[in-house]
């Protein structure tokens, strides 16, 4: 399996698989402000069916949704003429949809949206469902702030925020694994606080979702603690052409918690060009 690095200006692409293959799976990580390391090695088996492309959002200096879409547009343009599937996990799903809203989806072969968000109500539902967890976490965060000897960097604060929510990102059987993965991820705190405090507080992609006509697969974890299954189902209700696959006993990172099922569903989708996964 080949592993190559290609640069487009300041954007550094990590490419896994056969670069001569026409089919590309452009993988957009979540966060905002995480890096794509958490996809590895879980998505590696897909490299037999498409070249996998990864890049770190914000590597060009982007800290707003518009700039992130511009960044993504450069990558898509670089692979123009290929059979491109956009694969968006969590916030990466919203980024893929924002790209489609601005530039259209005609250059793409398909969309794969995993544990994704489409409007600013994504967290309110989880807050209701896990109010005890959130209230106790609030006390922990306040105590931590008071106990600090020095002001942490935004990247450290960003990592702490993600680590706090590991119990919602992963089912109990995978908390330790999730803790390690989240701790080993690098964070762009400036991007995180900019997009979380700005764009993600006020956005609505539902009207755009209703217009999507390219093959689209949505995958959700039934035990997702941050983006609930009910929320994603409600987003799909506006477009009966989108396909849905639900994986039991997994939370927000279904490709980590049930890799085999996840890979088989995505393989079927891309190999059939979006027909009946």
């Amino acid at each position, binding site marked *: 399996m080949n592993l190559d690095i290609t640069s487009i200006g300041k954007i550094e692409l990590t490419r896994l698989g056969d670069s001569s293959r026409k089919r590309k799976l452009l993988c957009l990580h*979540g*966060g*905002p*402000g*995480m890096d794509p390391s958490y996809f590895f090695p879980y998505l590696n088996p897909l490299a037999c069916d498409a070249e996998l492309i990864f890049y770190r959002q914000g590597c060009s200096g982007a800290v707003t949704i518009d700039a992130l879409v511009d960044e993504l547009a450069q990558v898509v343009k670089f692979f123009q003429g290929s059979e491109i599937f956009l694969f968006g996990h*969590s*916030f990466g799903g919203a980024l893929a949809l924002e790209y489609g809203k601005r530039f259209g989806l005609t250059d793409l072969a398909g969309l794969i949206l995993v*544990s994704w*968000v489409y409007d*600013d109500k*994504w*967290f*309110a539902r989880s*807050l*209701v469902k896990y*109010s005890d967890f*959130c*209230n106790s*976490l*609030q006390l922990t*965060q306040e105590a931590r702030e008071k106990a600090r000897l020095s002001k942490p960097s935004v990247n450290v604060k*960003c990592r702490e*925020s*993600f*680590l*706090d*929510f590991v119990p*919602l*990102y992963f089912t109990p059987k995978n908390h330790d694994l999730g803790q390690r993965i989240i701790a080993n991820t690098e964070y762009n705190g400036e991007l*995180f*606080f900019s*997009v*979380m*405090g700005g764009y*993600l*507080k006020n956005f609505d992609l539902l009207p755009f979702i209703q217009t999507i006509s390219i093959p689209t697969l949505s995958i959700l974890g039934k035990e997702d603690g*941050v*983006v609930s299954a009910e929320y994603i189902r409600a987003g799909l209700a506006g477009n009966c052409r989108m396909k849905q696959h639900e994986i039991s006993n997994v939370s*927000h990172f279904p490709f980590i918690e049930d890799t085999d099922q996840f890979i088989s569903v995505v393989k079927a989708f891309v190999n059939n060009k979006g027909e009946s996964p």
Partner: protein
Amino acid sequence: MKLVVKCILVVVFAIGAVQIFKVIRSPEAKNASFIEKGVVLAGQEHGGI
């Protein structure tokens, strides 16, 4: 007579105040305020997606 009316008004207001306090302190109201705070503080107090 005026004193009696005043006393009745005070009692009515006191009962009303107690009821309002109970609603504010209810678990539902606590959740609502946290949700509001969570949305307002998005990105500062909770992890991302």
